[in-house]
């Protein structure tokens, strides 16, 4: 063994890409349906985005501009690692600017900025089956999807309200896609669920370890499950972002010291930076403009 062989563009061989593209096409044709695919062993561990990476590798072209985020941020270690992987194996242009990207691979967030028709959002999915924690057996859950037997999902929501007075699911909040399949949106906070509905961008979901791909085509209804008298609600934050002063965005809690000091800042780092470049200032940076808001 001397030199290792060269890798194909975007790591995967062309046969594999075609197989994955067929799965993606089927997924787009049946919105919210989990299409089994022959997931490959990837050079990163299962659970770290192998599904998303395979989907991205299969749709990536030499002229694409790639953005990778994890928890909303471009600078988290796993996002940095995956971005570096595609730079190495595909030599594509990368960006942190949401608006410049043609493909955005994400873990756990949807960017705050509204996505457009020429963009694809690729989600990394750990557990694609929304019914999994109600029924562990795959044979059963596939049957439940086939027969559209989703009563059990509402039983869970009913129990939440009966015990806690509210629906106690905060992330991976189940949605119904195009009025048919109940789908797991991946562990994004439920705050992001409304962004999936009627989105102009194509949304693709890849689960490598569980070997499933599913999709939400552009302009598709995505409805969060709820009750008429306990409607779906997103999280709200008491204060705006401490750095850019943004409201109605998802915030991360940052612990400042061991005396209980903490601040809240945008989880979407690109959104926050763009606002600061535009002159917005939050409390930590001397709240100049936002004080009036």
């Amino acid at each position, binding site marked *: 063994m001397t030199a290792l062989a060269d890798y194909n563009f975007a790591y995967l061989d062309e046969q594999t890409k075609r197989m994955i593209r067929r799965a993606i096409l089927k997924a787009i044709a049946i919105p919210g349906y989990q299409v089994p695919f022959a997931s490959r062993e990837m050079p*990163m561990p299962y659970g770290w985005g192998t599904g998303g990476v395979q989907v991205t590798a299969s749709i990536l072209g030499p002229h694409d501009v790639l953005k990778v985020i994890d928890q909303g941020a471009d600078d988290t*270690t*796993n996002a940095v690692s995956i971005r570096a992987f595609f730079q190495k194996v595909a030599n594509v242009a990368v960006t942190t600017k949401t608006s410049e990207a043609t493909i955005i691979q994400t873990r756990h967030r949807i960017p705050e900025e509204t996505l457009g028709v020429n963009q694809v959002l690729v989600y990394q999915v750990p557990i694609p089956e929304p019914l999994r924690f109600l*029924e562990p057996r795959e044979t059963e859950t596939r049957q439940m999807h086939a027969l559209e037997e989703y009563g059990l999902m509402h039983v869970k929501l009913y129990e939440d309200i009966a015990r806690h007075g509210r629906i106690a699911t905060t992330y991976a909040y189940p949605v119904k896609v195009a009025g048919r399949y109940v789908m797991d949106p991946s562990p994004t906070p439920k705050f992001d669920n409304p962004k999936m509905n009627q989105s102009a961008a194509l949304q693709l979901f890849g689960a490598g370890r569980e070997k499933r791909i599913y999709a939400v085509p552009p302009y598709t209804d995505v409805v969060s499950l709820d009750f008429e008298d306990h409607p779906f609600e997103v999280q709200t934050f008491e204060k705006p972002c401490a750095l850019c002063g943004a409201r109605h965005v998802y915030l991360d809690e940052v612990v400042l010291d061991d005396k209980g000091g903490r601040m809240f800042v945008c989880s979407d780092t690109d959104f926050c930076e763009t606002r600061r470049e535009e002159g917005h200032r939050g409390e930590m940076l001397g709240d100049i403009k936002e004080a009036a808001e």
Partner: protein
Amino acid sequence: MYVAVKGGETAIANAHQLLADRRRGNRELPAIAIEQIVEQLALSVDRVMAEASLYDRSLAALAVKQSRGDLIEAIFLLRAYRTTLPRFGTSEPIDTARMQIERRVSATYKDLPGGQLLGPTFDYTHRLLDPDLLHDTPVEAPAGRTDADEPVMRVSEILAGEGLIEADGELPADHVAGDLTREPMEFPMTRDLRLQALARGDEGFLLALGYSTQRGYGRTHPFVGEIRIGLVDIELDVPELGFAVSLGEILVTECQMVNQFKGSAKASPQFTRGYGLVFGQSERKAMSMSLVDRALRTQEFGEDVVAPAQDEEFVISHCDNVQATGFVEHLKLPHYVDFQAELDLVRRMRAKHAQPHDHQEAAE
């Protein structure tokens, strides 16, 4: 030919000689040195120390060499040695808050006092075979830290500040920590003994059980509050001196898993914890251990035992790989006598079955 002969002594001696030969391999290559194993196969050494419950790098490396790299065999060797050692005393509990940290990550906070410190991790390496390692390519010295000695607060303390997480478990004042290797095991176990059993339990078995909880067989809603790896002081209280003296430092991996708990009639909702602590650097083991620890506390929180990982007897009785390998492999020992009895029975039943039946069973 495999024949049941008496006086197999020569056969055994010859087999052992062959084993020694195979272990040494090609004599034209230099023999591997214990120091090389300690330095370059450090994670194998760590696993052997952890599952043998004996912290001694050189002895663990010797066991790895003697076992030809079979780690369960090495664990077995080191445990057999450990049994012979006298106990001089019991150290003070180690204080991981005062750990000299080499790696520390939290998945629950983006940034926190003390920072996130990646340390020597495989994470974010791309698993591409590295041809440089075919040769002894020089390796650059790593970047060092400047603030290495400051204590770093634990994530559990951040949550405890708001009462959001359960406190450390309390044991009665006169409780003496048990010793699994000196006392017979009884179910149900106290948590100290259970954690001992998990700490020396098989990494692969605990990994699979931890994984099963993530896939719905006993779900616990886990978040990695914190993983920290580093050196901690071992101190022994010497009654004659009236104070604790330091015996040295050991490398440990600690994992505090933070789990959702919706509360019960008795307790208000708060986060609960699963705990993992192992000798050396082994995040996989510490994380699996903390998942299984939390799963095994199911009944404590009034939840239903529905999955294997929640069943204390099942988990603890099967997590010890030296026990497991012994019993599985014992099947290759002679069982001629029992088998003869079975042979006879099957022959009789077949003879009976071959006779034509003339009656039909009544409907049920």
